[in-house]
């Protein structure tokens, strides 16, 4: 079996323990492909994609808390394991949240409660 090109990511030790909140979203969240076809919207990307990319860029500035190469390598690993069947860009969003939680930059509990507030806020609008 031929070896594929080594991607230079640090090897060994990255076991991806699922985060319950993110597993819940992964399992029950509606991905853009489904939403767009249900409502007949042609845009290939969800409306939050540019904001997600904005976050990835702004987190990469200076001596940041989440260096871009590490973030991408973690995203690669999660894309081949716990988020393997999640389409893009939902997968990129879950991986970003996971990387932030893993580093203690945001907490799962805070995210869960903020998501509830967001749902309530937008439902009332």
């Amino acid at each position, binding site marked *: 079996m*031929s070896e594929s*090109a*080594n991607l*230079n990511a*640090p090897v060994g030790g990255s076991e991806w323990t699922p985060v319950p909140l993110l597993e819940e979203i992964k399992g029950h969240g509606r991905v853009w492909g489904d939403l767009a076809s249900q409502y007949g919207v042609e845009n290939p990307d969800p409306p939050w994609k540019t904001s997600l990319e904005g976050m990835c860029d702004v987190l990469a*500035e*200076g*001596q*940041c808390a989440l*260096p871009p*190469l590490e973030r991408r390598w973690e995203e690669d690993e999660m894309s081949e394991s716990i988020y393997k069947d999640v389409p893009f860009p939902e997968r990129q969003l879950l991986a970003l949240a996971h990387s932030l939680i893993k580093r203690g930059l945001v907490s799962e509990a805070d995210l869960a409660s903020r998501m509830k507030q967001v749902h309530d806020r937008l439902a009332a609008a």
Partner: protein
Amino acid sequence: MSHDKTHHATIATGKGDPQCFKGTAGPAKFKVGDRVRIKNLPDIFYTRTMTYTRGAVGEVAVVTHESPAPEDEAWGHVDHSEWFYIVRFRQKDLWPEYPENFPNDTLQTEFSERWLESA
């Protein structure tokens, strides 16, 4: 806002990155056409020199720009700059089983000077 981000904005605004490091690396050790070998330096953690190129011999195709090496830049050490080079390899020199019926295929990728030695 970190000191590093402000400092970078100060030196790079209006110029860009890597342009802001122009003139900081001294003379380039290699020139277009030089045959070079990729050193197999020990990785501390962070490198942009691809494993599949280590030990390979190629030719300098382009002398691109001066910049801190990524190994230093990742830790915020931006006081030292190096010249960067795009080095071109024959695919058959990179992969032992590369098919012989595609003899002209090449691959090129970029290295900072510390990774290169004359071949």
